[in-house]
């Protein structure tokens, strides 16, 4: 055991630039810190995993589907018809499907990767055996805010393109409201639009980070005991790690689903404004 267990530190540690053989991957682009840290690596890993899985499954797709292909097509058609098709008008659904589907798959795989312990900290390893740690890119607020911002920008872009700029912003105010109230309602709507970014990003980030924290706390407590007798006594706690991990699978899927379907609902609502 490495002996140094600092669960809280783990979350700041992931933001430290990676250290490969004494070479720090620290980059500065003007005022921007473009260092490659663990979050970036997890981002890349999640993206590569998503691409490899999806392309791999689509590449071998044949007219007569096997079991894997049937499952993949089932997921694909579920996203196309239920996630996107049900909340957007037909033409918009077709053009926005790739975005929503990519969002769903990327967040889902990123979330699920948070459940797989990966040998990451080469330096902190015990007898040169790297420490296995679990982390998910979506457990970082920057990642979820970036994705939420993307949905936010695309929502208003889609709304303006479909309705025209003036008509789109006019749609923020109910036409039946008295003129005095219109400005107030416009302001309220604007605030609600801004808070969509917060709700989208914080929901995903908090769910993933809390799961991460809970599991880390359980692991740490088990490791801190360092006595077989007590370890046997607190067996329920060890079992609960498994239970929490199983629950995390469900959370990972549901959060990806929520993020994707809310994005679809926001974009669909902007295209097809209610008056």
């Amino acid at each position, binding site marked *: 055991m490495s002996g140094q267990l600092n669960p809280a530190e783990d979350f700041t540690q992931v933001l430290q630039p990676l250290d490969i053989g004494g070479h720090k991957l620290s980059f500065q682009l003007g005022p921007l810190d473009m260092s490659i840290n663990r979050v970036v690596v997890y981002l890349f890993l999640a993206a590569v995993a998503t691409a490899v899985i999806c392309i791999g499954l689509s590449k071998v797709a044949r007219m007569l589907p096997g079991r894997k292909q049937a499952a993949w*097509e089932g997921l694909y058609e579920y996203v196309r018809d239920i996630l996107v098709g049900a909340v957007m008008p037909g033409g918009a659904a077709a053009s926005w499907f790739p975005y929503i589907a990519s969002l769903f798959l990327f967040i889902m795989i990123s979330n699920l990767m948070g459940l797989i312990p990966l040998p990451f900290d080469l330096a902190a390893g015990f007898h040169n055996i790297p420490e296995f740690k679990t982390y998910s890119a979506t457990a970082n607020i920057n990642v979820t805010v970036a994705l939420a911002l993307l949905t936010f920008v695309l929502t208003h872009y889609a709304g303006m393109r479909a309705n025209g700029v003036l008509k789109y912003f006019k749609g923020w105010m109910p036409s039946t409201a008295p003129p005095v109230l219109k400005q107030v309602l416009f302001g309220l709507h604007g605030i609600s639009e801004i808070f969509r970014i917060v709700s989208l990003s914080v929901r995903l980030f908090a769910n993933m980070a809390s799961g991460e924290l809970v599991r880390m706390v359980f692991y740490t407590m088990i490791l801190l005991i360092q006595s077989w007798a007590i370890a046997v006594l607190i067996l329920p706690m060890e079992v609960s790690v498994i239970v929490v991990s199983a629950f995390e699978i469900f959370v990972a899927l549901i959060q990806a689903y929520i993020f994707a379907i809310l994005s679809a609902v926001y974009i669909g609502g902007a295209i097809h404004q209610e008056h």
Partner: protein
Amino acid sequence: MLNIQPGLMIYTLITFGILLWVLKRYAFGPLQKIIDQRRDAIESSIRAAEETRSEADRLLAEYRQSIADAKNEAEDIIERARKVGEDQKAEIIGEAHAHAQKEVESARGQIQRETRKAVQEIKDQVADLTIMAAGKVAGKAITKEDHLRLVDEAMAEVDFDQLAAGGQ
């Protein structure tokens, strides 16, 4: 964990942007193509099956019709043949009747002719014999013309018709 790092956001957007492009081009596109192809194949095979079935139905109806036609035709042919046979029978019988009638007629004519000839011969012989006998009796020959006249007178009294009827 709540540190704001714009660099990380940019990495996220770039990574996700590339992933979106890659997935759209290499995963969703090909899969949708396969799904469309399969739908088309299923559609066309259903259409082909429907066509085959309607074709089969049509052929079956056609065959049934032609079997019915053939049956009717066969009945017609048999009927016609029977009629022709009967006609021929009637004709043959009629012909045979006519022929027999004709034969009988001609036989009757022949008999009458023969009878008439025989009667003439008898008449001639009787005349000759009479002349001969009369000549012997009268010792004087009378001319043949006289005799013939006499015979004719005698013959007129004989009823030859009755003789001819007897020869029938």
